């Protein structure tokens, strides 16, 4: 429920049901369609230039904002963990341009390379996805994982706890976490508290903003834009307790979709199917009996249940290969797109106009 002057914080945290997202990292190609779908809808206003409520970065890597996973926040047991706030440059600064003029019009293309320019016309030293495709691992086994992120609409949201104005709340009907813009004073305790750095400060408005889970769409039965627009068919959407929906099946029945950094203690509601990878090589080019993406690395992201989830995926793939049908693999392939959205399948283009 929303803010009540004499109400307790507990009422702000309560929700009867919970919407959730599953993202299959075996299929994400880092095309950034989700990033752009969100940006175009929600963060085109002044002061929001640096914001990408939906974003996709490379792991291992600095991520977005730069080194977010080292900034603190979340819980250590029952205690809230202090942290630090990102700077504008941690987000990659303001809007970037290219030196198109020099390369294409002034005839300097033989001497000048196409390059990114910052707001001062200089070559920046950091920007969104500056470390794209760098990844980790040593030859002959380099690796990286595409990691699409957004607000996790946590079941135990530290952002709600941290806000001294009681401006952040979970919607009672579906658990969507929102910031009441009328109550927000821009104190940024929420930015510090969110271990995923899914809250962004707008210096023009002097207030904090975050992913709103496309609630005006959700309220009309349309999946959020990042999920609906995903060309990789990586995403499932719906109520976590809806036993007919893919989200429920992948998280609760098959246990192949896992939360990011469960150790932060926030019970996040974006779940990831961890990626399988080809077998690793030894120095002589012989195949080893282990996957190229190290288990320890995936466990550092998605917790101790990774090996079990990967084993389930392999078992079910083997079944499918052997000619048997696997419900899990069919679900992940997602032949009929509407099956992936737990009933949130209305077409945004045909939405009835508001009166």
């Amino acid at each position, binding site marked *: 429920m929303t803010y009540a*002057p004499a109400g307790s914080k507990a009422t702000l945290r309560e929700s009867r049901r919970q919407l959730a997202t599953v993202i299959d990292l075996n299929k994400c190609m880092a095309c950034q369609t989700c990033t752009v779908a969100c940006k175009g809808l929600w963060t085109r206003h002044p002061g929001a230039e640096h914001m990408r409520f939906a974003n996709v970065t490379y792991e291992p890597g600095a991520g977005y904002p730069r080194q977010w996973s080292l900034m603190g926040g979340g819980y250590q047991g029952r205690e809230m963990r202090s942290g630090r706030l990102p700077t504008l440059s941690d987000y990659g600064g303001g809007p970037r341009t290219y030196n198109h003029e020099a390369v294409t019009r002034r005839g300097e293309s033989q001497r000048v390379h196409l390059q990114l320019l910052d707001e001062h016309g200089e070559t920046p030293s950091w920007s969104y996805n500056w470390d794209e495709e760098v990844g980790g691992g040593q030859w002959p086994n380099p690796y990286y994982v595409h990691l699409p992120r957004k607000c996790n609409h946590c079941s135990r949201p530290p952002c709600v*706890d941290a806000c001294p104005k009681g401006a952040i709340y979970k919607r009672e009907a579906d658990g969507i976490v929102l910031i009441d813009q009328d109550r927000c004073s821009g104190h940024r305790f929420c930015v510090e508290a969110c271990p995923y750095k899914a809250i962004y400060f707008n210096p023009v408005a002097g207030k904090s903003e975050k992913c709103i889970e496309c609630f005006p769409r959700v309220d009309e039965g349309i999946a959020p834009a990042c999920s609906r627009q995903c060309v990789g068919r990586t995403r499932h959407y719906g109520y976590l307790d809806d036993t007919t929906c893919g989200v429920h099946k992948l998280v609760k029945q098959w246990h192949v979709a896992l939360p990011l950094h469960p150790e932060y203690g926030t019970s996040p509601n974006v779940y990831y199917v961890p990626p399988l990878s080809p077998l690793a090589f030894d120095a002589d080019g012989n195949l080893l009996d282990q996957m190229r993406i190290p288990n320890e690395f995936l466990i550092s992201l998605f917790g101790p249940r990774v090996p079990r989830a990967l084993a389930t995926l392999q078992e079910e793939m083997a079944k499918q290969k052997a000619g048997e049908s696997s419900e899990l693999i069919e679900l992940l392939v997602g032949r009929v797109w509407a099956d992936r959205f737990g009933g949130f399948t209305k077409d945004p283009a045909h939405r009835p106009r508001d009166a």
Partner: protein
Amino acid sequence: MKARRVRASEEDLLSPDSSFWSGGKTEFVALSPVPLAMTQEVSPLMAKRTDHGAVSSVEVAAVHNGSHLALRLEWETSTSNAIDDLDRFADAAAVMFPMHPEAAAVTMGSEGRPVNAWYWRAGSAGRATCFDVVAEGLGTSVRRDARQTSLTTRSAYVQGRWHITLVRALETGGDAMRFEAGATTGIAFSVWDGANAERAAHKSASMSFSELELEA
């Protein structure tokens, strides 16, 4: 503390250099770090802080001209701070008045016992902002557009010292705080050091209301 009655225009009241300021007595009000343990319910994260209260005193003077009340606040701080990056906080100050005889300053009032505050905050390139604030307890403050209550401010940072004036009509109608020449009201003070990331209850404050008498 006494707000002397002076013959001055509203514009004169706003100027920290007006001659009447030098004629009157100023008071040094001691400020101390707000005991944040009491904010455990409104923000367990803020409640953990122990590094606040950078500014330990504010020099205050008050006058009125029969229609407007003016307060001048000055304090020392080694840098001036505005929100010039996403991790930066601004220097700020506020004066607070009880709108109910039993309102407590340290909790910013309580349900049914509201307080009113005039809040000033430094801005980039000298563009400061001010709000009129009403609260009924910790975490309940509501900022209102200062124009609604005719609150105006002027500020300057000179040689390690903030000089700010806050001016408001004694009567503004509606449910806003009323002042009356000849009457006495309570007054309390808060200062936030931006360099120390102070904001919300993470600040220095005078903790209890002292008396402010408006000369008849």
